[in-house]
């Protein structure tokens, strides 16, 4: 690793700001990237990592700030421009053409020619040589799609390196890789680092960060929280910086301490285990996304799922709802074993699911607030028994008021509402079905503080009335505040289960941050 004091940074970001209508995505972010280092960019969803990468690679133009490449200011206007300048990016989805051969994917746009025709043999040879440098030995003439994602990423990296790249950006490359493949990728990165390449590595996996990084930049809420040498930052500190409560917010959260005390009392009563179990899983898992999980959710309990992004929380939620099919294990509702062939079955036994991706998986944007709210209830009632319009209007109005949804009318298309109000509409969709258990996956992400408060208070109230809630959130303070019990997840399996008063924030952080056996 090069000594940072003696070498000039190859890439500098100074005060980058970028706003989209009404939301400040990046606020004065600065970053220094040196040759011969692996610099990891960390942060939860919504922290601004992907926006920063998009600014670097020319997808977005910054409102303020400068990008300096080897001391010269640059303003890449497209991904191609960024590539030509020497900033090469490898994305999570690889962004190559699956139908073309490996060799072709590496060389497309810069084919070797012979007598006016593409020289296929030369191309194959060169491709093999390039891949050999990354310790990959494959038949370069087979279509890219016939290889697993890990190999495809190596091909993407080869392509990136072909154009005399100065900076290599890897945007969440390991989300779909298993441990062996990750190790292979890392050994390649270490070689490149030794050859002087400046590598910007974006991830949310703790263990990987500590395995490969020289320095870490933590982002939070669009700002750079700090830049640290990897060896100087403990895991707990890192997690704290990513999801912990900043001092100011902790003070502001005081007024809710009374509510927290109430729930402590209530939780005490619930924690004696006399409440019936609503849902129980035994070894529920899915190959590649979740290790077998044993879980219990009691009636009227608010179970919080804590953990970092990628720890398997959403995967678990989807399995519980039948949105994904489990490979193994059982689910029992009220003691009766059930098979969920799809969400329909879960809805039939009284489970509701508010997805974290409300834009793509939740909101039906062109339909009205009323229609969006009635959707799940209507599917449960079947096609023939349409809910009478009057009743629909009644229910819709009720929830607009109860949840404080800001909309011109219940006939307004949901697409016209703000993110927070859309979220409330989706919440109402499930509340209307009066479920026995409601799974909420990041229900407060990207929502303003007041709306957050309103939603969480409403949810806590529901629990007191007997509804079970599985609450997933990246905001630890939130999870701690409202949950009766917390299950911590890490690396796609459960890492611990704790009743409410057994935990405070720092202990949860410890559990989350505790290194896995394979580092």
């Amino acid at each position, binding site marked *: 690793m090069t000594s940072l004091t003696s070498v000039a940074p190859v890439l500098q970001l100074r005060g980058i700001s970028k706003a989209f209508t009404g939301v400040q995505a990046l606020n004065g972010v600065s970053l220094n990237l040196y040759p011969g280092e692996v610099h990891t960019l960390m942060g939860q969803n919504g922290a601004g990592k992907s926006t920063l990468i998009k600014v670097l690679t020319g997808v977005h133009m910054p409102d303020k700030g400068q990008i300096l490449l080897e001391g010269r200011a640059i303003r890449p206007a497209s*991904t*191609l421009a960024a*590539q030509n300048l020497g900033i090469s990016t490898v994305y999570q989805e*690889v*962004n*190559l*053409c*699956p*139908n*073309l051969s490996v060799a*072709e994917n590496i060389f*497309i*746009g810069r*084919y070797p020619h012979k007598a006016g*025709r*593409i020289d296929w043999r030369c191309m194959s040879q060169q491709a093999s040589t390039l891949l050999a440098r990354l310790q990959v030995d494959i038949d370069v003439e087979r*279509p890219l*799609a*016939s290889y697993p994602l890990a190999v495809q990423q190596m091909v993407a990296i080869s*392509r990136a390196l072909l154009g005399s790249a100065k900076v290599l950006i890897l945007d969440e490359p390991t989300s779909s890789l298993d441990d062996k493949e990750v190790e292979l990728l890392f050994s390649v990165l270490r070689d490149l680092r030794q050859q002087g390449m400046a590598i910007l590595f974006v991830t949310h996996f703790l263990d990987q960060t500590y395995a490969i990084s020289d320095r870490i930049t933590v982002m939070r809420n669009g700002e750079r929280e700090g830049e640290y040498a990897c060896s100087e930052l403990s895991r707990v500190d890192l997690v704290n910086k990513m999801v912990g409560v900043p001092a100011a917010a902790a003070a502001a959260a005081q007024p809710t301490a009374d509510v927290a005390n109430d729930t402590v009392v209530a939780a005490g009563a619930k924690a004696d285990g006399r409440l019936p179990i609503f849902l129980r899983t035994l070894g529920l898992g899915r190959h590649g996304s979740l290790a077998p999980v044993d879980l219990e959710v009691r009636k009227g309990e608010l179970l919080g799922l804590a953990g970092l992004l990628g720890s398997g929380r959403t995967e678990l939620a989807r399995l519980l709802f039948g949105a994904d099919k489990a490979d193994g294990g059982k689910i029992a509702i009220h003691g009766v074993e059930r098979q969920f062939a799809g969400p329909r079955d879960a809805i039939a036994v009284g489970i509701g699911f508010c997805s974290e991706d409300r834009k793509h998986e939740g909101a039906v944007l062109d339909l009205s607030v009323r229609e969006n709210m009635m959707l799940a209830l209507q599917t449960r009632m079947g096609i023939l028994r349409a809910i009478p319009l009057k009743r629909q209007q009644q229910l819709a109005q009720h929830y607009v008021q109860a949840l404080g949804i800001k909309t011109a009318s219940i006939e307004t298309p949901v697409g016209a509402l703000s993110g927070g109000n859309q979220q409330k509409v989706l919440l109402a969709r499930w509340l209307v079905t009066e479920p026995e258990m409601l799974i909420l996956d990041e229900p407060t992400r990207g929502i303003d503080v007041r709306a957050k408060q309103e939603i969480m208070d409403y949810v806590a109230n529901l629990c007191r009335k007997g509804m079970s809630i599985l609450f997933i959130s990246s905001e630890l303070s939130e999870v701690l505040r409202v949950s009766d019990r917390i299950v911590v997840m890490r690396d796609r399996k459960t890492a611990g289960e704790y009743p409410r008063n057994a935990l405070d924030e720092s202990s949860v952080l410890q559990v989350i941050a505790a290194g896995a056996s394979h580092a």
Partner: protein
Amino acid sequence: MSSLALRARASMASPYFTSLATVALLALLLGAGGAAYPGFLSLQVLLNLLIDNAFLLVIAVGMSFVIISGGIDLSVGSVLALTTMMAAWMVQVWHWPPLLAIAIVLSVGAGFGALMGAMIHYFKLQPFIVTLAGMFLARGLCYLISINSITIDQPLFVSMSQTQLPVLDGYLSPSALIALLTLAGAIYVAHCTPFGRAIYAVGGNQQSAQMMGLRVARTKVLIYAFSGFCAALSGVLFSFYMLSGYGLHAQGTELDAIAAVVIGGTLLSGGYGYVAGALSGVLVLGTIQTLIAFDGTLSSWWTKIVIGVLLFVFCVVQRALALGARR
């Protein structure tokens, strides 16, 4: 599983498997014909396959490019008819030199295609609906020129219609030769030039192609221009064959071309397939028709049914392979 079985499984999962299946099918059909009917496997019968379907081959070549890039072109049959009408009008009514007329109609075809390609790319319209409207437009323009057919008796056209190029014991028409040359040219472009590879890239993943720096806009517009050019060229060949310009020419030819391309092994979803598949697909269609003609007892609409069945088999097989590959 033994390595042989593994290799067999792998090659079956390859999207190019259906191209091989077509060639096998063609051999099967020809073999069956040869066994059932005397004189079926004679040289001239086989050459007639090329002569009678030369125009379809040219259209199928253009259609291959479009389909490989992930699009579709429903206007080709109508552009063919329009071409025959325009050429007939220019040559018979205005007495323009035939080569000039041919040059003009080829440019018009290419321009028409380029316009549709531009609309599809820049305004992000669906190729299906844009080329559908183009189909209406071309056919309508054709009728506007003349509702009746115009017979062509211009010497160049007539000579092209009647010339027989000797091949071994039989003969080939100049149209068939032109069609084969077009096919050869297209195969060269598809496999040896960056433009051809860009077509495959766009069909595989247009967004990735854009991010990899390929000039997607230019590629797409050129693809549709080429398809229009092929439709026009096919029209020229058709006018040699029929010696007339007529609005009712080539009704449904676009469907035949699509069927030929799909049966030839190109996936309708784009990105996979060989341009040479156009030839095997057209030959399969032609052989089926010849078989039915030789039989004499089967009505000609059995062709449509058989083509429909073949389409079904190929599409379902392609789909099953795609699903199986995902597991």
